[in-house]
């Protein structure tokens, strides 16, 4: 194993936040029993919803495909345990803050019978890269860091470019969340195995496994795992604990000192970033033939009796998981799925655990947020912005709904990390405003495209009508011309015919 290295690029801005991670990392990962009922949303990934391939009443086995991707971007969904399909119906999901989205509901039979997935005779080493991508897609694997982008598509996209580094993201910089830390401590070997599969699929020669320096147990476990495989291509790197250094582009900057261009992807600078959990999931699927049907998630916050990291089947409701963690405390006031900075508050604990749920955060009393005051243009927000935007200007243009300015000041590059909100002395909810503004400019772009289409169709129709009109006029003129040429003789002929008819 090579020694941890520290030669790093520099991250602009960022914040040192109170970690709140010791509460949940005290004990090892606990296994949540399979509940009586599992709820599987059809959209657990970015892209188009998957289409159910099972009928209501059908018996399914653990690991069986129940919904398959439809459209360009998507991932399949598998049954996390055996049972019967109870319904395919709307159910609250965290993606929509507790509003409904179509889900497959499975009543578990408790037997947890698994579908026999034939193990490939050959080891993955013999599979060509394209086939590996296909396999990864079949496993329903998506990015487990929170964005849930389908992994296979990300790999295919990255493979089309000139790749140099695989970066395994073990930088769990958001407060409270510790599921990746727990995973790295306990399943470092699978993570390293997943990384080697990825390197094999993409024919990469360099991999950085990146961890924050405040996670000594993870560093030790990963170090041992790396020593175990004795592969010089993999290097362990430590980075300082600064939020949001775990953001994809930020991590690339930090590790390789290359800046991902505005509107670009890490693959534009030769990098592919994968979460450590994703790597472990790839290993589980390719080597152990278990599709993505469970994940490690952190249940924490002062509203939970026993904060911990749990391994739960996808589809287990948040209520079941919190009950497993000792239930709510009296202080519990607010439920967030995801971290405190980028997570989503939900209105009900009936929402199920999905592929993207890395944390279930129950917070107690929220410190009263002071009322919003006018911007005093102090510039603190620009100092902490990791993307080097000017939030105070963006705020200005967002208020004015000035699409062109918002674009030219790089609103679309905002990663919504929330740093600017935290430091704003006027308590302006900048990130929320930016989210709205982003949606607004997307909408405006759609409107523009629609208008352009309508304009083209309108003009084409006018042209057609004009042409028809011209044709008619030309025809009429030709008829007149003909009549004129034929002249009085033709008219006399017609009259003659008429007269002879009358005689008969």
């Amino acid at each position, binding site marked *: 194993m090579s020694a941890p290295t520290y030669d790093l690029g520099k991250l602009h801005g960022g914040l040192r936040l109170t970690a709140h991670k010791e509460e949940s990392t005290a004990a090892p990962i606990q296994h949540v029993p399979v509940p009586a009922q599992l709820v599987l949303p059809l959209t657990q990934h970015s892209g188009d919803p998957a289409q159910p391939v099972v009928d209501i009443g059908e018996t399914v086995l653990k690991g069986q495909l129940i919904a398959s991707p439809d459209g360009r971007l998507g991932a399949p969904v598998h049954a996390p345990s055996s049972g019967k399909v109870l319904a395919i119906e709307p159910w609250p999901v965290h993606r929509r803050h507790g509003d409904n989205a179509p889900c497959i509901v499975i009543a578990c039979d408790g037997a947890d019978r698994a579908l026999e997935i034939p193990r490939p005779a050959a080891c993955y080493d013999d599979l060509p890269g394209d086939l590996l991508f296909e396999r990864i897609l079949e496993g329903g694997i998506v990015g487990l860091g929170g964005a849930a982008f389908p992994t296979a598509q990300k790999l295919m996209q990255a493979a089309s470019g000139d790749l140099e580094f695989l970066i395994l993201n073990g930088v769990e910089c958001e407060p409270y969340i510790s599921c990746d830390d727990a995973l790295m401590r306990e399943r470092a070997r699978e993570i390293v195995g997943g990384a080697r599969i990825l390197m094999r699929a993409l024919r990469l020669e360099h991999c950085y496994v990146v961890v924050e320096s405040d996670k000594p147990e993870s560093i030790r476990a990963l170090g041992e795992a790396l020593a175990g495989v004795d592969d010089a291509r993999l290097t362990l790197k430590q980075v300082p604990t600064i939020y949001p250094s775990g953001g994809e582009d930020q991590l690339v900057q930090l590790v390789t000192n290359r800046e991902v261009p505005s509107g670009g992807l890490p693959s534009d600078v030769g990098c592919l970033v994968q979460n450590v959990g994703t790597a472990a999931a790839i290993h589980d699927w390719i080597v152990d033939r278990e599709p993505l049907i469970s994940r490690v998630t952190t249940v924490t916050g002062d509203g939970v009796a026993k904060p911990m990291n749990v391994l739960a089947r996808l589809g287990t409701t948040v209520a079941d998981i919190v009950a497993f963690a000792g239930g709510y405390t009296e202080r519990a006031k607010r439920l967030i799925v995801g971290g405190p900075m980028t997570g989503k508050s939900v209105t009900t604990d009936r929402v199920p655990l999905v592929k993207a749920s890395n944390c279930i955060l129950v917070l107690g009393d929220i410190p009263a947020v002071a009322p919003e005051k006018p911007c005093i243009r102090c510039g603190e927000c620009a100092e902490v912005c990791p993307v080097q935007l000017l939030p105070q200007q963006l705020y200005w243009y967002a208020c004015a709904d000035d699409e062109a300015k918002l674009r030219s000041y790089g609103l679309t590059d905002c990663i919504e990390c929330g740093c600017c909100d935290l430091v704003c002395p006027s308590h302006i909810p900048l990130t929320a405003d930016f989210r709205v503004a982003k949606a607004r400019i997307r909408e405006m772009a759609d409107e523009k495209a629609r*208008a*352009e289409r*309508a*304009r083209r*169709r*309108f003009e*084409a*129709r006018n042209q057609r009508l004009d042409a028809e009109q011209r044709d008619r006029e030309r025809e009429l003129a030709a008829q007149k011309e003909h009549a004129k040429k034929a002249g009085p003789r033709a008219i006399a002929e017609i009259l003659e015919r008429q007269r002879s008819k009358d005689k008969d």
Partner: protein
Amino acid sequence: MWTAILTISALALVAGLALGIASRTLPADRSSLVLQVDELLPQTQCAQCGYPGCRPYAVAIVEDGAPINLCPPGADATVRRLASLLGRDPAPLTEPAPASRIVAVIDESRCIGCVHCRSACPVDAIVGAHQLMHTVIAAECTGCELCIAPCPVDCISMQARS
């Protein structure tokens, strides 16, 4: 002295040529203003402004000084943008803007195949033939409502887009 004269003449010639080419190839100012105004209009082609489509309205605004507040689908935002483009004062809309995007829906069981709506549609978003059922291509419908009036059996209604 001759160098100076030649240099200045050469410069004048080059500048003159450049300006000449520009004035021939670039569109004239007036029509480019019409294009800019047309760009800001929502292209529903609904004729609610009293002109037969967005382009004719744009021409009327630029050439005849038509009011800029006649476009309900464009809402207040369009009036504001037109005002700042043309240096005029924004005025409240003459009719309230629609609350949401709408689409025409033909009740196919009642359609008699008269083709009147198809001829009225400004963006060719209705398909159908004589004596045969018609239907609306929802993706192309701008919600202009021009097909409602010609229908002899009142089988077309406007519905909110999902």
